[in-house]
């Protein structure tokens, strides 16, 4: 889809849709006995927690041991990634019914409503209708923010969470942003905020005193964006992103392990799942990254590039295993292993080796057949090589091995 930049004069309208306490809300929906109770979804760390848990001081990213200390009565669930994906798909389908361009993430979406006023009439009413329709279809609440650009739509939504709806107009943008702490601006993390505080800059309004050259010198290219954002501007487009930025598959081990057969088996299984997703999207990764976390909390990650983009399991796996060999050097058990594919090319867009076409064609047909079988009967019905070692060690369902912390395509 062609990308349209929001008008710089503030006449655009962006709708930000954020699913409230996404994973935890779905678990409360699926089992009403969890309603009103603090619910945590995650393994090792909190991936999502209910508002009841947040009232006890819990938040995403906190370790489960810390969470249990703060809120001993919390119900901790491993999570069901496939269920969350289905709910998200339903919600995003409804967003696409109201907006011509929708950019989706795990639990939020940006909908470009620019130019739809004649279709919808009052856009605030259209957003209200979308909230109602999502609630009726899924039982979940979403918070919506309307603004002249992405940043303002998201920021104004944050002021009315959960289940809220708010709008900031272009005329109100300046006053809305001026007193915000700099950390609230997208692109300002802990490190940037520390740098700004050292300059006695604490709010977006104070940041406006810094010329764009200074911000670029401090933060590199993103400095120009921050110069725009502290004034309430954001020219980032809503992109359908048919090609995702990355496909990640990772899991923490059911029991910390230094057993190479088990770790290589898991990596082979994760590679198979990630490559299948890439094939289904018709894309081939150029970059493969392997991530490890040891049982003592230390972690390491390394990215390497393929000579040619490839979605073939053996090609990706060979590089992933080689990277694992370089990374896994400490004599400490592993807690988590993950793989990320990125830097994609469309399948067929890259140049192939001249004399390998027949072999490549046979391989494509083979993987297409594998994918068809797995789509019909579940990923776990075909398990190859090292991943066979996982049989009997890990639980299985119709989607394959049950991973503790499955992750999604972003």
């Amino acid at each position, binding site marked *: 889809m062609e990308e349209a930049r929001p008008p710089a004069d503030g006449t655009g309208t962006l709708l930000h849709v954020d699913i409230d306490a996404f994973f935890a809300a*779905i678990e409360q*929906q*699926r*089992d*009403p*006995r*969890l309603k009103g109770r603090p619910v945590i979804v995650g393994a090792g760390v909190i991936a999502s927690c209910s508002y009841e848990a947040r009232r006890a001081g819990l938040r995403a990213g906190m370790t489960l041991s810390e969470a249990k200390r703060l809120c001993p009565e919390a*119900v901790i*669930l491993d999570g069901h990634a*496939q*269920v969350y*994906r*289905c*709910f998200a*798909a*339903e919600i995003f389908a409804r967003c696409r019914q109201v907006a011509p361009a929708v950019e989706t993430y795990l639990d939020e979406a940006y909908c470009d409503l620019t130019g739809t006023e004649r279709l919808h009439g009052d856009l605030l009413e259209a957003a209200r209708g979308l909230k109602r329709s999502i609630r009726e279809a*899924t*039982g979940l609440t979403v918070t919506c923010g309307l603004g002249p650009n992405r940043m303002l739509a998201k920021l104004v939504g944050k002021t009315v969470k959960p289940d809220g709806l708010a709008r900031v107009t272009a005329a109100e943008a300046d006053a809305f942003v001026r007193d915000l702490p700099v950390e609230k601006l997208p692109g300002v993390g802990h490190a940037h905020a520390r740098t700004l505080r050292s300059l006695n800059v604490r709010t977006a309004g104070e940041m406006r005193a810094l010329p764009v050259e200074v911000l670029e010198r401090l933060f590199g290219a993103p400095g120009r964006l921050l110069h725009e954002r502290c004034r309430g501007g954001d020219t980032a487009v809503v992109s359908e992103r048919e090609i995702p930025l990355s496909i990640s598959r990772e899991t923490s081990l059911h029991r910390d392990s230094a057993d190479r057969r088990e770790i290589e088996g898991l990596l082979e299984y994760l590679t198979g799942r990630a490559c299948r997703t890439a094939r289904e999207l018709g894309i081939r990764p150029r970059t493969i990254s392997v991530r490890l976390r040891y049982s003592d909390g230390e972690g390491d990650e390394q990215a390497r590039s393929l000579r040619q983009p490839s979605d073939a399991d053996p090609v990706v796996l060979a590089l992933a295993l080689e990277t694992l060999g370089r990374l896994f050097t400490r004599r400490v058990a592993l807690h988590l292993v993950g793989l990320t594919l990125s830097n994609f090319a469309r399948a067929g867009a890259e140049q192939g080796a001249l004399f390998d076409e027949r072999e490549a064609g046979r391989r494509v047909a083979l993987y297409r057949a594998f994918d*068809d079988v797995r*789509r*019909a009967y579940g990923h776990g019905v075909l398990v190859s090589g090292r991943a066979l070692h996982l049989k009997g060690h890990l*639980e299985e*369902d*119709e989607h394959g091995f049950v991973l503790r912390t499955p992750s999604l395509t972003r």
Partner: protein
Amino acid sequence: MRQEHIDEPVAVRADFQGGTITPLAFRLRGREYRVARVNARWVDRVPRHPHFYFSVAVESGDVYQLQLQAGDLVWWLDSVTLEG
């Protein structure tokens, strides 16, 4: 909360009125369980034929997950979640 996987095909009595599937009761190991409430429903459209999922509470309060696979129209009982 304790989840137990069952993964068995089951006979389900369901209402298909108005294009909405609503499971009413299912039979497991010779015993009929009446559905007291459908807690949630969702659809997985990734497989070639969609899979319709239902989280249902039976009269005892236990929560079961049922699945209807549209390809072969077979109902599966995926799991039960028990208190404690």
